[in-house]
């Protein structure tokens, strides 16, 4: 059935309002959209790494999660959910759970909990092939502790541990390409997506990941108004600009086969994406033009590489 946001929005919410995530934050949009891709009759066991999402949605005695939920620590949501999934397999086998209906296992982690401190746990759980989906909501820094750089932070971004100073202009390194790292685990399904437009891309990828047997990985862009310093109503614009500039291409990898899902007709210059964000403000000072040119060259090269991987070049 073709995707229809109006229809999808009629499903009962599994991630309720009233949580404490910031206005203009991408992360709750991501979790809500991912959960909406579940069949209403299926149960989910959701895990979250320590981070904004966890501390803002499950503050004792309140929870925003209608499904079962577990948080244990920062670096281990993949291992934690892999244990819950193993329990499900064993309990089903031993007849301890009802035979009908399915339970889906979903782990949410920010880029800190996924690219950095949780990378080992993620890699292990994915390699073992648990029937689970790991969703990274990538906002490109440790936002929960106050905007420190991560290996997902883009080059030259101003963060509180890679400050744009008078000598060093923000983060010195390029970001890690986690989506391709996960694709090279040869998982049944890996996708990179973002909450844009009517959420079709994110919804369909979430649905595919949830209903593909085995360990699946989604890397989802989740802009952060505090860390990126944009006006909160611009959340959707920023996400769209990330896709239109190809700084965040939408693509999927199914059993090793790469498909680019969206190729902008007119690829926008990266300035369009950088300009509305305070974390890149210093790049627009006179004399720093070469930094923007360098970012542009890096985006172009990664985009070309992706097209080659997809067999389009």
């Amino acid at each position: 059935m073709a995707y229809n946001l109006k229809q999808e929005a009629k499903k009962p919410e599994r991630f309720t309002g009233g949580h404490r995530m910031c206005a203009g934050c991408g992360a709750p949009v991501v979790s809500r959209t991912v959960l909406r891709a579940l069949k209403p009759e299926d149960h989910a066991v959701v895990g979250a790494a320590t981070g904004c999402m966890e501390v803002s949605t499950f503050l004792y005695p309140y929870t925003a999660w209608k499904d079962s939920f577990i948080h244990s620590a920062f670096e281990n949501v993949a291992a934690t959910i892999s244990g819950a999934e193993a329990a499900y397999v064993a309990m089903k086998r031993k007849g301890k759970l009802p035979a009908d209906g399915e339970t889906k296992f979903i782990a949410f982690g920010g880029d800190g909990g996924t690219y950095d401190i949780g990378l080992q746990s993620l890699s292990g759980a994915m390699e073992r092939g648990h029937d689970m989906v790991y969703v990274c909501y990538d906002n490109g820094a440790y936002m929960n502790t106050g905007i420190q750089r991560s290996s997902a932070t883009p080059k030259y971004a101003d963060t509180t541990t890679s400050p744009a100073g008078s000598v060093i202009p923000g983060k010195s390194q390029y970001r890690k390409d986690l989506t391709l790292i996960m694709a090279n685990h040869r998982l049944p399904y890996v996708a990179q997506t973002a909450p844009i437009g009517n959420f079709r891309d994110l919804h369909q990828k979430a649905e595919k990941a949830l209903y593909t047997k085995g360990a699946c990985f989604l890397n989802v862009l989740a802009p952060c108004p505090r860390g990126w310093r944009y006006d909160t109503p611009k959340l959707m614009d920023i996400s769209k600009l990330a896709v239109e500039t190809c700084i965040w291409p939408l693509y999927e990898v199914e059993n090793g086969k790469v498909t680019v899902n969206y190729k902008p007709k007119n690829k926008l210059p990266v300035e369009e994406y950088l300009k509305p964000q305070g974390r890149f403000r210093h790049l627009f000072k006179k004399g720093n033009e070469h930094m923007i040119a360098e970012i542009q060259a890096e985006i172009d090269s990664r985009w070309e590489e992706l097209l080659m991987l997809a067999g389009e070049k």
Partner: protein
Amino acid sequence: MAIRDRLSGNEAVAVAMKQVNPDVVAAFPITPSTEIPQYFSSFVADGKVDTEFVPVESEHSAMSACIGAQAAGARTMTATSANGLALMWEMLYIAASCKLPIALSVVNRALSGPINIHNDHSDSMGARDSGWVQLYGETNQEAYDNLIQAVKIGEHPDVLLPVMNCYDGFITSHAVENIELIEDEKVKAFVGDYKPEHYLNDKENPIAVGPLDLQNHYFEHKRQQAESMMKAKKVILEVAEEFEKLTGRKYGLFEEYKMEDAEVAIVVINSTAGTAKYVVDQLREKGVKAGLIKIRVYRPFPVDEITAALSKCKAIAVMDKADSFNAAGGPLFTDITSALYGRVDGIKVINYIYGLGGRDVRTDDIAFVYDALLEIVKTGEIKSVYNYLGVRE
């Protein structure tokens, strides 16, 4: 009829796990506990259990997966040693605070550094305040028996705490001894089915585990956790009584060896108790009123019972196979002297740190300790409270 066999400690523990047939085992190899997941994975491969075996990529993930599994409704077990236990550290506290009765066999090994694979108690002693029940065993038989009891203790509704089954690396884990195994069906009947009240995989009653818990609630939750540990002592004794009915083997909070009229005693943990009992026998032949206490339950710490057992002694040596590096005494010494303070006065208590990194503990070493105690009784003087045994200084 009980089954007579000859097994190493690790094999005995793996057999206990096979008989319990847990839902999930998540483990990572580390000497000297490696054999446990090895034996267990062969039980899985040969279809002798229907457990889901999760061969994780680290001990941190082992404990994380155990937490996820037990919270999801599964009876869950794992095993580790030394640095593996240290890597689990963060998750040990979380397992206890989530009230998840995971059973962990800790095959005691010296904690790095320097790296050393042999036995002492620096690993599990460091985890003594993590909120886990800690059981210690001298022999293969005790390691086997303790694991089976650990399941029942941890899962008791008054407790709901994770339990460590600790025994000495190599000395107990790898030495083959005679053992009496319980029949499979009797083990199954003894532990019963695991029926948690709330669990993640109960789709009709979803739950949320592991909240952000701030000033308004955290303290109450820690107080409740402490209450579980206080109640554990009674449950441990009830389970031991039931176990004795099944096997004839008697377990308590600690073992008293020739303590009825003992004037000098040592307090010790795990395999060294075997060596020390031999020395006690020799001293008794010479007419020396020597005794021994071997700790079985270290957490909860049986303060009143141990005070009563030691109350008639004139001098006591507390043996610690781990140092606290507090320039004052080992962990067991600190606990024993705290227990005595204000309850029993006038007993002379000294401490020996011994056997670190697998240094052999000979009967001569133990005899030296009793001699020191007899000298204290004779002179009424303690020359040194905090001592090291069998080290070149």
